[in-house]
């Protein structure tokens, strides 16, 4: 097969195509009235929803921490304090993602836009990994200091086992939830099957392709 043959195949169809393509102007006219942009909306809504739910939840965590401080409840203060900090970090990163989404413009160079989009999606994945860190602290938030003093071995032992088990589970989850594992692991597939997580694999593949191009141009 000669070099020009590929182009000839393409052109032979293209010439006919131009003649027979009919544009439905009525639909285009209707579409120009649409304010919403579905593509960007698909990226934006899970983040906006998380922020809207996350803000009151985080404020509640801070409030409980504040109450814990006032009541001198050490475990409540410590547990909810850490949870509040982790939640705040998540919210800040989600707000930053929204800011990035607003900055992305499809009119820019394909490589730049695709890199920004892919990195944004992978950043969402990492935010979830940060969120996981709070899991063990939920177990110590409910520990009563008085009960611990009264029954240090039984009450303290059970709570320590629960805390250690949840810490190990968090460590295991954090280690296993990597982008490479999303495809293979059933845990990852279960956790990352929502609307925000569908694009992760594709984003990862696009980034790999872009890296390939960058490596090629550096040679």
């Amino acid at each position, binding site marked *: *097969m000669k*070099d020009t043959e*590929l*182009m000839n*195949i*393409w*052109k*032979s*169809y*293209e010439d*006919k*195509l*131009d003649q*027979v*393509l*009919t*544009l*439905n*102007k009525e*639909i*285009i*006219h209707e*579409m*120009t009235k*649409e304010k919403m*942009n*579905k*593509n960007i909306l*698909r990226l934006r809504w899970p983040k906006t929803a998380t922020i809207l739910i996350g803000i009151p939840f985080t404020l509640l965590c801070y409030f409980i921490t504040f109450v814990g401080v006032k009541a001198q409840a050490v475990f409540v203060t410590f547990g909810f304090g850490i949870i509040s900090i982790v939640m705040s970090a998540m919210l800040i990163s989600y707000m930053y993602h929204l800011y990035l989404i607003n900055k992305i*413009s*499809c*009119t*820019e*160079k*394909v*490589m*730049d*836009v*695709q890199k920004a*989009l892919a990195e944004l999606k992978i950043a969402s994945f990492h935010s979830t990994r940060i969120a996981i860190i709070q899991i063990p602290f939920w177990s110590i938030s409910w520990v009563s200091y008085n009960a611990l003093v009264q029954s240090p071995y039984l009450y303290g032992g059970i709570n320590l086992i629960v805390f250690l088990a949840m810490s190990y589970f968090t460590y295991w989850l954090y280690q296993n939830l990597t982008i490479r594992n999303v495809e293979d692991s059933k845990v990852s597939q279960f956790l990352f099957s929502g609307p925000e997580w*569908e*694009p992760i694999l*594709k*984003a990862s*593949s*696009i980034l790999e*392709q*872009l890296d390939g*191009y960058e490596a*090629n*141009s550096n040679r």
Partner: protein
Amino acid sequence: MGDNEDKFISILENHKGIIYKITNSYCKNKSDQQDLMQEIILQLWKSYPKYDNQYKLSTWIYRIALNTSISNYRKNKVRKEKTTELTPILTTSVNEVSPKEEEKYSDLQKFIKELKEIDKAIILLYLEGLSQKEISKIMGITSSNVSTKINRIKISLKQKFNTKNHSS
């Protein structure tokens, strides 16, 4: 209908082939293609007030169409179950092409669909007859990188044609 809308529709009319061919290469079925066309046209309409005259209209359209197509992360399985037929934005019936030409073209389309997203974008621009410099401007990579990539993709496409010819 406003002046802007008239101008926009006339731009689409003049470049409808670009949108059709790109969506055809990035979609597996007709309803996905119609949906992607709708997204591209919405993106074009949204960006139209900010269109910069220093770029050719086709460059602007290629960038938006390719960016939208590559980042079109849809869930095909769910879509097939839920989808209802969309009213077509672009319709075609290419009957005048000979069966042999038609077969070669559909093979080429099939092989292009099998390429990775970025490679697919580059070969589409090449087949559309754009120069390496223009492809480099649209994609944001160097001309030499474009040239290397095009050669590799062409070799891969030719091999697929040869394998198909040998097996049939």
